[in-house]
């Protein structure tokens, strides 16, 4: 099973659905495309689960009980030189298997949910074909055995998420958001590409396995890459940091995070899929893929990961406290949680006990996918109900949507880290890893965890409590209860997962070196974070359970700080200032002037010259064969004279 090509079906099934619904969807499969997509993913999910079972319980371990990296198959696509080739392959190891399970599961949930959410949408089939394309790209990305393969799928993921974010293409804000997401990540991807080229140049390979091996043992490749340096930093560090920049772009780490909140313009199920569980963790996955190199050979690059991660997580958590668009709150919370995963990788060592951070990061990725998808889908149900994204238009919804209310509450408890919900376990591991390796990071992390509980419950109370009744009932006819079963079933399944997955002994399956990592539960250590989270919840309760204006007063008292946070620390404005004022005026305008007056001038001149020249030589092509014979003869003669008399060798 593990060595069979059946695994390839996991990405190929969604691809086939993409082709089918993309080509014939609008005409022939209009209403059928949702079911088609869902069925294909169901099959893919079953295969993934079965693969996971085979790998983790039956065949995955080698003689020493260590999980091996299995290449299920590899097809050489482009051979550059004997060592360097771009392959299309499937690699199976604990993290890639975990990822295919997560991706197929969340995508399946989103597919089911969308059947209700997107019902009646005119471009229903197109939506499903984009969704399938995205799932295909994401699965291809996580299964990649070659760093260039990952890059190809990386870009495909970018393109398909561009299509999905801009799905409502008649909405200018959606189009702008799609463009922004694409452009910002493109910038980061440029770094990724350069990083790949640096790493490939020094390692002489594009294959992950070989690359990791060459850079983690002492050999000629390793000494070459550490000896070469640019601006006092070794080539290895440059390469890894550049690759990390690519990851930071996709994972919305500071300062590339600006696209994520805007990307909430897309349909909400899309946000659940792309911006909660799959694409945004691609950066974390990338660092985890190359983790041996980061950890064993290049601690400075890992430090960059740590500080970018911890800063982003605090930064986003602060902003999330002030936003009123519920999807934006979730977007910032995603950014904050991914920051957790990043710095967990950063503080981790390699192998054994030291690898706790790595395991915790992957664990958190796993649990976060469940409860964040649940939060987004729940938010989607709420938006579906009140027809607004703004929490000002919500309140008191707990009675009209009981199932959504309960599931949303579970998810909030999970993300806040209250035992026994899933988020508690993974967050504990992360905090423990930080505590063991980097105390300052630990302090910031634990504060961020408290803030997380506060803003998540601010969100929860504002939606489901606060005002007793929604005042804005202009859509009376739309108050149709909670929404169809297709939306409620995924919510319920995900809620069960958000409770249950924390009990999986994750360290037994995923660890930095493939060995089992048994973690002990330490109640005393957990006490602090839980108390902090509870106080965050209580604070939110105090401010937001009833509409009382307390929060406004605090906001007023905080004045400038509040406004800065509300305005997301003006990062967007800074970018706009830099691009519009600085780049436009200092670079753009002069460049435009040079372009207009000098480049155009030269081009026009050369065009005129070429034009005149070709006009001038036009008579040569006179149509007279006799004349052609003369030219022919002259040509032959010139060659003869030139090479016989002048160009002797």
């Amino acid at each position: 099973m593990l060595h069979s090509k059946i695994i390839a079906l996991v990405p190929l099934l969604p691809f086939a659905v993409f082709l089918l619904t993309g080509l014939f969807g609008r005409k022939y499969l209009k209403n059928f495309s949702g079911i088609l997509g869902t069925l294909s993913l169901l099959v893919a999910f079953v295969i993934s689960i079965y693969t996971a079972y085979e790998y983790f319980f039956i065949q995955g371990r080698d003689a020493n009980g260590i999980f091996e990296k299995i290449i299920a198959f590899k097809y050489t696509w482009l051979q550059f030189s004997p060592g360097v080739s771009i392959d299309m392959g499937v690699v199976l190891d604990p993290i890639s298997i975990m990822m295919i399970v997560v991706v197929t599961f969340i995508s399946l949930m989103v597919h089911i949910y969308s059947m209700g959410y997107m019902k009646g949408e005119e471009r229903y089939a197109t939506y499903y074909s984009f969704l399938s394309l995205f799932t295909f790209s994401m699965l291809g990305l996580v299964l990649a055995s070659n760093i260039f393969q990952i890059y190809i799928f990386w870009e495909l993921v970018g393109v398909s998420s561009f299509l999905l974010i801009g799905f409502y293409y008649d909405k200018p804000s959606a189009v702008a958001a799609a463009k922004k997401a694409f452009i910002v990540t493109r910038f980061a991807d440029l770094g990724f590409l350069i990083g790949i080229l640096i790493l490939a140049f020094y390692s002489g390979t594009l294959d992950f396995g070989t690359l990791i091996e060459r850079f983690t043992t002492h050999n000629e490749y390793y000494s070459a890459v550490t000896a070469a340096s640019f601006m006092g930093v070794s080539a290895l560090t440059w390469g890894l940091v550049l690759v990390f920049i690519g990851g930071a772009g996709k994972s919305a780490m500071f300062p590339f995070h600006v696209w994520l909140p805007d990307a909430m313009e897309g349909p909400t199920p899309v946000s659940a899929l792309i911006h909660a569980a799959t694409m945004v963790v691609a950066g974390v996955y990338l660092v985890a893929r190359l983790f041996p190199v980061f950890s064993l050979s290049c601690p400075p690059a890992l430090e960059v990961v740590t500080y970018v991660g911890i800063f982003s997580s605090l930064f986003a958590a602060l902003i999330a406290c002030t936003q009123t668009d519920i999807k934006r709150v979730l977007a910032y919370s995603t950014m904050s949680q991914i920051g957790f995963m990043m710095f967990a990788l950063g503080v981790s060592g390699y192998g054994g006990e030291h690898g706790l951070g790595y395991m915790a990061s992957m664990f958190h990725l796993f649990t976060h996918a469940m409860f964040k998808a649940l939060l987004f889908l729940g938010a989607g149900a709420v938006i579906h109900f009140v027809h607004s994204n703004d929490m000002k238009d919500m309140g008191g919804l707990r009675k009209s949507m009981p199932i959504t209310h309960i599931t949303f509450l579970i998810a909030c408890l999970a993300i806040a880290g209250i035992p026994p919900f899933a988020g508690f376990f993974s967050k504990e591991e992360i905090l423990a890893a930080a505590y063991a390796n980097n105390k300052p990071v630990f302090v910031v992390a634990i504060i961020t965890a408290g803030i997380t509980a506060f803003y998540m419950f601010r969100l929860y109370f504002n939606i489901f409590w606060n005002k007793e009744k929604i005042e804005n009932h202009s859509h009376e006819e739309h108050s149709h209860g909670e929404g169809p079963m297709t939306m409620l079933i995924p919510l319920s399944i995900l809620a069960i997962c958000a409770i249950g997955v924390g009990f999986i002994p994750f360290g037994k399956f995923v660890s930095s070196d493939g060995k089992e990592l048994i973690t002990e539960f330490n109640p005393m250590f957990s006490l602090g974070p839980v108390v902090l989270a509870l106080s965050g919840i209580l604070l939110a309760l105090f401010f937001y359970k009833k509409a009382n204006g307390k929060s406004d007063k605090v906001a007023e008292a905080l004045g400038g700080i509040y406004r800065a946070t509300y305005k997301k620390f003006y990062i967007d404005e800074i970018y706009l200032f830099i691009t519009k004022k600085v780049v436009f005026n200092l670079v753009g305008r002069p460049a435009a002037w040079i372009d207009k007056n000098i480049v155009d001038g030269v081009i026009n001149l050369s065009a005129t010259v070429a034009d005149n020249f070709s006009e001038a030589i036009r008579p040569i092509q006179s149509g007279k064969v006799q004349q052609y014979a003369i030219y022919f003869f002259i040509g032959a003669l010139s060659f003869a004279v030139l090479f016989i008399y002048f160009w002797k060798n």
Partner: protein
Amino acid sequence: MGNDFFILMKPELSLMLIIFILLFLKIWDGIKEVSTLLMIANVLLLANFVAGFFLNKEGVLFSGMYHTTSLIALEKNVLAFGTLLISMMAWDWLKKHEHLLEFYILILSTLLGMNFMISSGNFMMLYLGLELSTIPLAALCNFDLDKLKSSEAALKMIMSSAFASCILLFGISLLYGTTGSLAFSEMPAHLDGGMLQLLAFIFVFVGFAFKLSIVPFHFWTADVYEGSPVAVTSYLSVISKGAIVFVFVTTLLNLFGTLGTIWYHMLVISIVMTITVGNLFAMRQENLKRFLAFSSITQVGYILLGLTNGGSAGSAASIYFLIIYIFSNLAAFGIIGMVSVQTGKENMSDFNGFYKKNPLLGWVLALAMFSLAGIPPTAGFFGKMFLVTAGAVKGNYLLITFAALNMVVSLYYYLRVVKAIFVNPNESPMEAIKGSWSVKIALGICMLGVIATGFYSGIYDYIVSILS
């Protein structure tokens, strides 16, 4: 030798067989239905192409006069395939033509000549093959019997060819005089680069250069392309040129390998002139067939660039490029042929607003142009990339830069066609063009080729594996 003869000469024998079948059909005159005749011809060509995949053996016949290898078998298959595509695209044109069987007999005779030429192991054989492939072509150029331009094209073709053949033959005689042999197996040992041999080589080079339309031996090209029927033009620009490239590659590398430095410099001069002049003239053309004539001149310049490599990488790149070139150029000619048969229009301005009523054909033509211009992800990009990297091995970066700059220039005129199709306004855009199913299938195959040849690395790998 009996068995060997039938197996080794299978491609030629099957072509001869088809020619005779068609000849007897003509004489019998029993089948009046034009579509049936066309169907028979196309099926025979398809069978010929399919047969090319089986029972291929390497070997030598007629004491070295004729030889075949798996590379040669591949080349013959490529030509047979191209001819099949052209025949499918010519369906509508031939349907109206009363001499369609003669068309097939003539065109297959030229293909037969090319096969002999590719398989030749001796200059005599090569020359005979070359002539067999040229003289029927002149008759084919005249196949639009009621058009004056067509006759003019034929006349120009035969006169210029005669002139070029003379020089080539002169070169071959001199070679015989200085080396005492015409056999490919013996001649290289006697090549010492003496002045007379140099002159002989230059004459042979020029003879080929004429066929390949290398500047300044290209003058006949535009007039002949413009005057000939579209099917013949596409045959001239793709199949005829392809066959010569195949022979040219092996001749330069295997036969004149000792004169490597000389022909390297000759190639460099030819490349610079060919690409520049081709580009400059292509920019101004209004007639699409003339435009494609000059574009094909430029494309040959890039093939030569690959040949400067002087090794198997160069030949692999040029053969690979030719396959892609067949797909892209035939797609363009296919559409021009459809339009020309139905409306008689062949000018670029006639295509203004073409997209409005013919969206699918518009895209096909645009994709063909993209591939010719070498824009990724079409196959044309990969073809040019391999040619340029093959050429870059010699380290003549000035030449590479020059070629790359010219590629940018060529974008201008290829995109002019695309602009006409999509952007240029037109009060009365061309009506929807209808073609028979056979044209559509051929265009479909071309499009598949334009996209798949680049992505599927198997083809290039196969060529490399044969060569090494």
